[in-house]
Each structure stands twice: as C-alpha cells, then as structure tokens.
C-alpha cells in the first residue's frame, strides 16, 4: 500500500490521469490532459476508455508502447472539455503521451471535424477505430452515456459552445451552405449528439 504521505507529481500536458466524480455526480473516468490554462489553472482533457472493440473512426486506439500505460486505451477525440485541477486524482499518473503528439491529435481532429479521422494521424501505435456506429445502436448508447457522464465530470466556460464540436457548430453557423441536409450524414455522430443537446441543430 502507498503511504499516506506521498509527493504527487504535478499535472502536466500529455499525462493520463483519473478524473474523479465531483459534486455534479458522475463516475470517475480516465482522461488525457491536452492543455493547461495558466490563467486559472484549469485543464482541457480528452476522455479515454478501454473499449477498443467499440472505437469508432473518430477515436484513436493508443498502444501501451505509446502511452506507457498497462493496457490499450481509446482516445475519444470528440470529447474534449475543461476540468478543475481539484477533480484529478493526484496519487498516480497512469501513462503519458508526448506533448507534441497530443497537439498533433488536437490539430488534426479539429481540422477534420467531419467523418473519419484522416490516415495521416496514424502510426503503428496509434490506430483509428473501426467500429461502424449507427444511430441508436449499442455503441451510440454507450457514447451517449459517456457524454452525459463526461459533462458531469467537466465544465465549459462558454455555454454557447459544447466541448470540441464547437468547430462544427461554428462552421454550421458561418456557412449557410453547410445546412444542406445531405451534409448531415457527413457530420460526426458525436457532434450531432452534442448539437442536439446544445439545442443548436438536428439530432439526426
């Protein structure tokens, strides 16, 4: 057993940590720290899970070699939100990723907000998920419940934008042409789900 007296490693970008349930409720989850805001000490985090079989093409399956964690991890690129530092479990760092790699993942996911993540992102230790999610299937439901839970664990400053789908939302607001119904099929399902929650657009 660990001693009650321990020196915790400070929170840093690239670390995989446990985010604990807070007063809003929720269940603890693993997250990857993507950015630290030095102004208020909060952190942007990606949600992680262990469901490699249920990783969709917007997710990245990270090998143990890359993360130095003890198991393979799925990074859900669509689930990025802000967490308070006091909600992290400080006792242990469960793995870490190079800061540059984290930036690259963010940039590519942000620049490609629709459909499958591009192959350029991959290397042998970072695979794009393959599960073909369909609306209301078990993976959709799983992700919906993960989304709800993640909202409880995190917060967002600007209520107008919901987690990482803000890019998709802004695009839809700015470019009227993107409201074309046929484009809805191309939108990431998580983005649509988030949009439906944000009362911005269709839940199709």
């Amino acid at each position, binding site marked *: 057993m660990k001693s009650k007296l321990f020196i915790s490693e400070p929170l840093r970008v690239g670390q995989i940590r446990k985010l604990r349930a807070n007063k809003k409720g929720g269940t603890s989850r*693993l997250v990857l720290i993507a950015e630290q805001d030095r102004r208020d000490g909060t952190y942007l985090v990606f949600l992680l899970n262990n469901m490699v079989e249920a990783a969709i093409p917007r997710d990245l399956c990270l090998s143990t070699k890359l993360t130095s964690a003890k198991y393979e991890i799925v990074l859900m690129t669509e689930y990025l939100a802000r967490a308070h530092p006091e909600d992290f479990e400080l006792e242990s760092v469960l793995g870490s990723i190079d800061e540059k790699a984290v930036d690259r993942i963010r940039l590519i996911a942000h620049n490609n907000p629709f459909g499958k993540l591009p192959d350029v992102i991959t290397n042998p230790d970072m695979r794009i998920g393959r599960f073909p999610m369909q609306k209301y299937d078990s993976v959709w439901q799983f992700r919906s419940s993960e989304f709800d839970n993640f909202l409880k664990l995190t917060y967002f400053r600007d209520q107008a934008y919901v987690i990482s789908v803000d890019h998709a939302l802004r695009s839809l607001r700015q470019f009227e042409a993107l409201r074309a119904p046929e484009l809805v099929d191309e939108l990431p399902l998580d983005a649509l789900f988030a949009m439906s929650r944000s009362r911005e*657009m*269709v839940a199709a």
Partner: protein
Amino acid sequence: MQDLWLEMKTEYELQGGLGKLWLAEIGRLAQQVVNKKILERLPPSIFGFPSWDKDDLMQLVITDRLLGRNQAQYVFDTAESIDEARKILRNEINFVLSDHRVPNQVDNVWSNLEPRLLELGWESGSLESDSESELHDQLVRLILSLKRLRNKGAQRLSPLFAGPVLGDLANQIVEIRPDLPSKLLIKALRTALTIISPSLSIEDVGSIEDSLELSRDSYAKSEESVRMERGQYGSRRHEIARDICEKLNPETLEIVFQKAHGANQSEIGAVLGLTRQTARYRIEEAQQYLLNEFKALELDIEESREVLSAMLDILGVRLSEVNV
C-alpha cells in the same frame, strides 16, 4: 465490514495481481451471467462451451481479458467503488462471450443470405487470386454499411439484419459479380461481423427499457431537431410528427422503427422479447393508433405520408433506407 472494493484494491497491490477476493467476485458475476443464459435457454455450444460452467467462463475472462489485455489494471485504476468495478467486469464477461459467439452469428447471417443469393441466380464460382483481396474489402465495406437491427446487448443472438436489408445486400453482391465464391463471402462476413459483434455486448447502457426511454427522450427533448427537418417536411408536419412521437410508448416507437427497416413480425418479436403472435397484435395496434392519429388530425394521404416520413427521420431511420 470494511469496504469490499478497498479490500480488493489492497489485495491487488499486495499480490501484484488478482487474488482470492477478485476471483470470488469474478466468479459471482460469471455465475450470474451463466444463470441468465440458462434461463434464456441458450445452448452453451453457441459460445463454444461443452456445458454452462461458470469456471470455464471465469477462466476465459481472466486469461483473455483481465490478464491478457490487462483489463484488471484498468478496473483497478478506474473504479471508485465495488459497483463501478462490477460494471466493468460484467462488460469484460460479455466481451468474452461475444468473442466466442462470432462464428454462429456468421452462420446465421449466411444461412439467411444464401437463399436470397440463389434466388437471384448466384452460383459459387472461383476467382483469380489477385482480385480476391480487393473484392473482400469491398464486401466488408458493404456489410458494414448495412443498417442493423437494434441490439441493446441484452439478447445474445437477436437478429442482426432485417430481411429486406439482406435482400438488398444479395442484389448488390450479384451486381458486383454473380459468381463470387461462397468462401469469399463467408470470409467477408466473418471480418465484418467480428468488428460489429463484440460491441453489441456493451452493457453499461442500461436495460432495453432504459435505452428505449433514452432514445425517446433524446429526440423528444430535442427542440433543435425541428430546424433541420423543417426544410424537408415543413414545420407543421414536423411538429405533428414530434407530437405523435412524444405520445407513443417506447414499444410502439420501436415497432415503427423496426417496421421502417422492413423487419417482419418474428424479427420485431425478437427485438421486443415477444412471441410472433403477440408481436403481430402489437404491430396492428401501433398501425391502428397511427391511423387514428392521422384521421383525428384530418390529414390527407400525402400529408400522412410526410408526417410519417418526418417521424421516421426523428426516430433515426434514414430515408434512403426506408422500406415501408
């Protein structure tokens, strides 16, 4: 009594892995799953077991998942209470069962697909080896893009595709080549369904009833859904469709959803856990209810069609796949 999860964590740390407490807990969960399967009268052979024995299942869970993929460590790192740990462990058990079920699912789909292919004049032939892998990938993509029947992970062998969807698949296969070898088709099915299958077992999403409620809520509450669909159906039609959807109970919504995919009475029965006969009554009731609603609103045929289309869109049926 000390907190069980705390004791399990202590044991895990002291022993550097699974100890007696963990084995007992996994055993209990495996026994629950086995009991459920026995109650459902599922033959153990479906999952490759000679008999329903919790020890066999437990061994696979430990070797394949908890040790093989180090998921025990994940449970240890993530769970905050025994309930959370049990949830993840239950998922691990279901993943093991799904992994071992795959060949049966392929057999099921193939036995339903083959007669449709034969009807269209397909005959198993041979191929030049250089085109095989390309065709295989094409077929896998085709199978993965098919609309699946809902599976909430509660029914291990519920049908995966509605009859008409398989009919379309047969047509597309014959269009690609009318003499594709059966070996290649089965191989493509296996590849595609291996991806789909394990994910069907995710149980963290609640029971079937909960999920139906969730689906119902997710669109019933989505005021924003109006905006996009307004353009397509006109705002009044869409509002009517939403009102009707809000009035329907989850079971009726499921029936409408499944009917839109061309599911037959048996398939709808399987999804709802009803006999074919009961499913037939429920389908008739649902149809009658909708007709009455349309009648009460004094909608003509064209308007009724549009309202129904809007309802199906709200329910998540893509219009291109509707087969009513």
